[in-house]
């Protein structure tokens, strides 16, 4: 079994309203010194496929569903 972590991040330059609003909410709650908040989505999956194939399968998953290339990048990490 392989554990894969697929990290979906916003492309550089794409605004992050969720991050900005979270920052604002945290500040309203009294937290100080927050320079920036960025949202990142992580899918962690346990795969019953040979480790040699896992990376390419995860990349295909990312292309087919998990990331929209217009706004997002993905990074696959096998553990």
């Amino acid at each position, binding site marked *: 079994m392989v554990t894969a972590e697929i990290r979906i991040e916003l*492309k550089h*330059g*794409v*605004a992050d*309203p*969720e991050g*900005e*609003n979270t920052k604002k909410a945290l500040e309203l709650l009294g937290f100080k010194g927050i320079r920036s908040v960025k949202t990142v989505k992580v899918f962690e999956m346990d795969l019953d496929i040979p480790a040699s194939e896992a990376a390419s399968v995860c990349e295909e998953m990312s*292309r*087919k*569903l*998990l990331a*929209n*290339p*217009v*706004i997002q990048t993905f990074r696959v990490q096998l553990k």
Partner: protein
Amino acid sequence: MKLEEIKVCILRIEGTNCEQEAYDAFKALGADPEKVHLKQLIGRSPGELRRELDEYQVLMLPGGFSAGDYVRAGAIFAARMKSHLAADLENFIASGRPVLGICNGFQILVELGVLPSFDEIMSEAPQAALYTNVSGRFECRPSYLKHENHGKCVFTSLLPRGEIVAIPVAHAEGNLRFPSESEEEFLMRLEENDQVVFRYVDPNGDYAGYPWCPNGAIGNIAGICNPEGNVLGMMPHPERAMFRYQHPDWTRSGGKPDAPGDGHVIFRSVLDHVSKRF
């Protein structure tokens, strides 16, 4: 063909939730709508429930939160369609039959790659995104749309160009985006192909920022069609404005409350088109 013979497939999965009013809109105009679960089109239902996409003249993807909008709005529904229904859908679109995606339906069409559809009916990967609203919030509010299409879109053929319609929005992810490196080019191609259908405007008809453009979409774009004009995706909900009494200010605007509302023309146009063409 006759109006009452026009079969409309209102496609849904779990979390699709605007199918009833979409059904009612087509029904009110005399067509023959049917609510169909995706599993019925891909052979995953009991025999008597099996349907073929080819049996219908119009395909409609209603609003909602299909599959919870998990991953990204519309992405899961799109992936499920793409894996089992891609060929049927391409044939459907190629035959000139209309496809309408409203709100979540628009998100699905974009994720599927059938909008904006610059080079092929269905692109391999999405060419656009309906991204989180600039406000970061779900926005349920009135909006005004200016009709910008020069006549290609079969869903607005009865609506004069330049006309302003009041149609409400209700979404958290309606911010139309193109890849930043091709933004200019894509906008130009949309214009050249006559693919822009609606833009958000303020009550005076001027292009305006938030809140009149509720999501920050590029070029204030609320709805686009494919280059052939038979696939329309739009974030606002015309099925919620079929009659005046559904408008937010009908008690002030005078006129008969049960007269057609501003969304009516979209359904009327497409049915008019189908009855003439097929």
